[in-house]
């Protein structure tokens, strides 16, 4: 049995080691490249070891979960906010993903960013990101979650804009942060509402997960928390997920976020941060459970995102953006799973997705590193020049498609089974999306890796420091389905449904086959299809016009109309009319009264005497 100090130490190290690294790098000198990389990697490997140690003891049965350690961060008579670490199977699994996949990506980065001028800055931000992400994962209350939530947003901003001289990168970072801020407006209100309704007594209000969870039934019963409020709170909190997990209609920032360095896309915009929304939903599933209307909304938003973004990946020429749309689509699956009541299924898919999507991104990064290109139309024949990269990309793509026996197959199957049981329409949407997934994955594979290499393409394989993480992640992508993750989360995988598996396999085969015919065999011309369905093609190429509408809103309505009107009001009404108007009136009065000053001494004397006489007269009267 392990208890007490070692466990607490492990828990705190798990959370704080990356923070120490993030503080250490700028303090010890930004110009020392090797030192900063070692600090960052060490700062993540140590927590990984802690997490493994905790996992080992949990599996051996010598550690009882959940365990909680905390210090009070704010302590007032009517407000106590602890800062703590809550370790239960869910958070342990997620922290293993963050630290494990994160470590692989950190190591990869030393190769990918080797010649970057902002090397140490990059690793500082990565370490800060790891800390923030672990804060979300290990939080024991809503506010701590929110703190991590905002900090990952900031790290994402800084890392997307790592190459800030590039206007697109700078704009993309800003966009990501602002879209998330808009979403967090709802999220924050949701947390506030939850806090305000957590107890009828102001002094006993809390944001602690476990306390809230135990109180919820009695709160609902006593009527202090009405059902409508619960639904509203749930929807507001879900707003946060819309932003962080890039669900429609707030998904627009994620494709743009691909301007950042590729390891960042792998870590933040595929494996961990964007999954934080799903994790938060699973973490607090007890809250949504009581509000079926919220779950219904969540499921539909997830299903819509899964389908519509998969369709976007079909026409996208940029390799990283294809993967970004794919991430959106897979996140949609996870959100849909949670909405259908299967938080374990959602978490399962989150885990396998973290493996294979990080793998795909790192492989794409290796391609970019080796060719300096990322438009698949300018690539080709990489299978020969970059064998390791191609092989690992292939494994990742298979797992993504849900090829039998690979990790993606099992987790996606769980979600489809769930949809099959609960909602026929969402089930069909999910299956069609599976077909689309196979289509765009095959397309990317065929165009970029098969066929003839275009002229002037000088591809070279990446260094081992980048290939080893790829291999490790490939192994995880293959075996991810056999690790017993659902059982670890307390809900063993259900019986295998042959009908669901057969349908999804049929969809995958159709999608992959079509893509093969179009892009490999060239039996059907892609241009002909595009011409036949011109309106659809236009809709997809323009990303359903979301970006155009938002740009129009931000530039024309928000900046020019609202802010501009306020600025004009300020300049002409408040300053011009009110303040300067008053000054003008004062001047006017002065101008009128100064006529009395004639400059003739005799006049003044006369006035003076008259005044004296008047005073004397008055004095005589009283």
């Amino acid at each position, binding site marked *: 049995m392990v208890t007490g100090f070692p466990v607490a130490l492990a828990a705190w190290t798990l959370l704080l080691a990356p923070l120490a690294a993030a503080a250490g790098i700028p303090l010890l000198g930004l110009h020392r490249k090797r030192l900063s990389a070692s600090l960052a990697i060490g700062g993540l490997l140590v927590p990984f070891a802690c997490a493994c140690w905790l996992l080992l003891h949990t599996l051996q049965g010598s550690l009882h979960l959940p365990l909680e350690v905390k210090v*009070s*961060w*704010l*302590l*007032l*008579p*009517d*407000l106590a906010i602890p800062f703590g670490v809550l370790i239960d199977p869910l958070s342990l699994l997620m922290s293993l993903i963050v630290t494990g996949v994160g470590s692989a990506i950190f190591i990869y980065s030393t190769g990918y960013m080797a010649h970057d001028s902002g090397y140490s800055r990059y690793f500082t931000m990565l370490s800060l990101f790891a800390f923030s992400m672990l804060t979300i994962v290990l939080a024991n209350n809503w*506010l701590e979650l*929110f*703190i991590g939530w*905002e*900090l990952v947003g*900031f790290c994402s*901003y*800084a890392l997307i*804009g790592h190459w*800030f*001289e590039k*206007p697109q990168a*700078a*704009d993309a970072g*800003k966009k990501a*942060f*602002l879209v998330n*801020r*808009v979403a*967090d*407006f709802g999220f*924050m*209100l949701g947390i*506030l509402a939850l*806090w*305000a309704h957590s107890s009828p007594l*102001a002094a006993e209000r809390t944001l602690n997960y476990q306390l809230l969870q135990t109180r919820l039934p009695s709160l609902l019963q006593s009527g202090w928390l009405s059902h409508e409020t619960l639904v509203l709170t749930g929807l507001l909190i879900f707003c946060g997920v819309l932003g962080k997990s890039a669900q429609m209609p707030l998904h627009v920032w994620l494709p743009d976020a691909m301007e950042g360095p590729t390891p960042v896309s792998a870590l933040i915009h595929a494996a961990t941060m964007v999954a934080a929304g799903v994790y938060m939903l699973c973490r607090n599933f007890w809250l949504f459970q009581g509000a079926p209307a919220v779950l219904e909304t969540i499921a539909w938003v997830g299903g819509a995102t899964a389908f519509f973004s998969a369709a976007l990946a079909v026409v996208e020429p940029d390799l990283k953006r294809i993967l970004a749309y794919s991430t959106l689509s897979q996140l949609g699956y996870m959100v849909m799973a949670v909405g259908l009541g299967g938080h374990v299924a959602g978490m399962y898919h989150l885990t396998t997705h973290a493996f294979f999507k990080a793998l795909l991104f790192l492989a794409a990064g290796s391609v970019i590193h080796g060719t300096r290109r990322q438009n698949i139309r300018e690539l080709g024949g990489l299978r020969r020049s970059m064998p390791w990269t191609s092989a690992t990309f292939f494994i990742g793509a298979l797992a993504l498609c849900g090829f039998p026996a690979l990790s993606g197959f099992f987790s996606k199957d769980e979600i489809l089974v769930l949809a099959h049981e609960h909602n026929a329409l969402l089930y069909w949407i999910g299956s069609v999306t599976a077909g689309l997934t196979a289509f765009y994955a095959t397309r990317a594979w065929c165009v970029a890796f098969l066929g003839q290499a275009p002229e002037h393409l000088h591809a070279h394989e990446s260094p081992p420091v980048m290939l080893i993480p790829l291999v490790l992640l490939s192994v995880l992508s293959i075996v991810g389905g056999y690790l017993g993750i659902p059982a670890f989360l307390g809900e063993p995988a259900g019986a295998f449904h042959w009908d669901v598996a057969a349908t999804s396999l049929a969809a995958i085969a159709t999608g992959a086959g079509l893509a093969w015919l179009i892009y490999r065999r060239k039996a059907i011309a892609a241009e002909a299809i595009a011409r036949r369905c011109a309106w659809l093609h236009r809709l997809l190429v323009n990303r359903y016009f979301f970006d155009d509408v938002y740009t129009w809103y931000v530039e024309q309505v*928000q*900046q020019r109309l*609202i*802010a*501009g009107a*306020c*600025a004009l009001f*300020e300049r002409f009404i*408040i*300053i011009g009319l*009110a*303040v300067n108007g008053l*000054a003008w009136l004062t001047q006017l009065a002065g101008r009128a009264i100064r006529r009395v000053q004639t400059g003739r001494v005799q006049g003044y004397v006369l006035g003076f005497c008259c005044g004296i006489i008047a005073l004397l007269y008055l004095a005589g009267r009283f």
Partner: protein
Amino acid sequence: MPTVVPVLAVLLLAPALGAVLLCAVPASRADWARRIAVAATSVSLALAVWIVFDYDRATGGYQYEVLIPWVRPLGIGFHLGVDGMSAVLVLLHALCSFTGVLISYAIKERVKEYYIFYLLLITGVFGVFTSLDLFFFYFFYEMAVIPMYPLIGIWGSDVKEHGVVRFSKEYAAMKLTIYLTAGAVLALTGLLWLYVSSGAGTFDVVALQHHLSAFPLDARRQAMIFPLLAVGFGVIAPLWPFHSWSPIGHAAAPSAVSMLHAGVLMKLGSYAIIRLAMGLLPDGAVMWLPWVAALCTMNIIYGGLVAMAQKDLKLIIGYSSSSHMGYVLLGIAALTPLALDGAVLLMFAHGLMTALAFALVGHVYDETHTRYLPELGGLGKSLPFIATCGVIAAMASSSLPGFGNFVAELLVILGSWDRYPLQAILAVLGIVITSVYMLRMVRGTFFGTLPQTFTHAQDAQTFFARLPYLVLVAVLLLVGCWPRPLIRLIDVSARPFISTFAHPEAIRMATTTSSQPR
């Protein structure tokens, strides 16, 4: 130490003494002038830090008191003392003035005269935060306002748009001084009225408070005096719609003056509202604070939207300050301990953040000779340190967790949620608006391609040049990551302070029944 040395008097007189010493320095020796100013403010800073650590949290109340009777017949005395709230603000001012003196190294003309006025300004602000006598409070208040006139008028800079002067520094100096003095006179009227009608015959705040709690003023009289104080001090706070002096003044002032101006001077208003208007007129406060709560929403939202439309860096931060002071006023108006804690902490955090931002803009202006957003860009390349601090300041302003601003705004919002839910929601919206204009500013100044003209811009390179920025960032982070000690210090005084307020309904009942003359 407290029994032997009157800490507060030394803290207050150190900069004043520095100003006197400076008069004796030959005008050609700018280096002496700078050293004297640094020494004077360092003494104050050291003492302020010492007070914050040493203040006895178990006892609470006013500590380190100094009382020297002066005009006995009128009840005027030189009375100093700090409680938890003012101790935090004294620390804020000490930090801002110390870093401001360092930032003022960029001043090259008439250095001696500059530092004399600057130290006078510093003395005035210390005086306001520590005075417990209405007369001296007002005296120091004016002392803090008047030096702004020469400081802006002589060492300031004109505000330009596309190279065309929009308004001159002389105009800004005149407008600011007249506006603030007008507000001060309004407040003085209120203070004198209060003095006369209290019947206590003393200007001493503590004695007056004591007297008024035993013989409270008629609620209707309070309702008449409170607006005079609230608007008079609200002008400097700045309460919407009396804010228009501040962005103009910020924009024209030299950066170290803007630092004090936005960092500390604005807090004089909100502090005076807490200490005098609310402390002496509790019933009036309960009646009028809903109006303040309504107006400060305008501060938050409207100020933020106007900031969004600005193109001059200093005007953006100027309007941002008036937007964020809305949170402070909301926290004050909510009349809950939580919100007041948040308001005082926000004064502290926002003061540091704004000082940092103005110092940074000053550096950018010195290097590029422009503050006009469309002309800037890409400076992150040539000014990496300044750009990093710029991102930090922007994030602190948009209340990213980890900075004091987040904790403070969170407390304000939590504390005002019950009484003013709508305002609290709009306050959350204000955070979104803040991040819009702050990121726009960072994007336009530091990111993107570097124009050819700015390739020679110099970063802050020596440790000494970086020191002021590092101090401000470090304190912001410290308070944000571990807010407990400072909040505890504020809470020691804020909680008993709020508990003296009657419930609003009780006051409303009292005013309706007391319509017959007493």
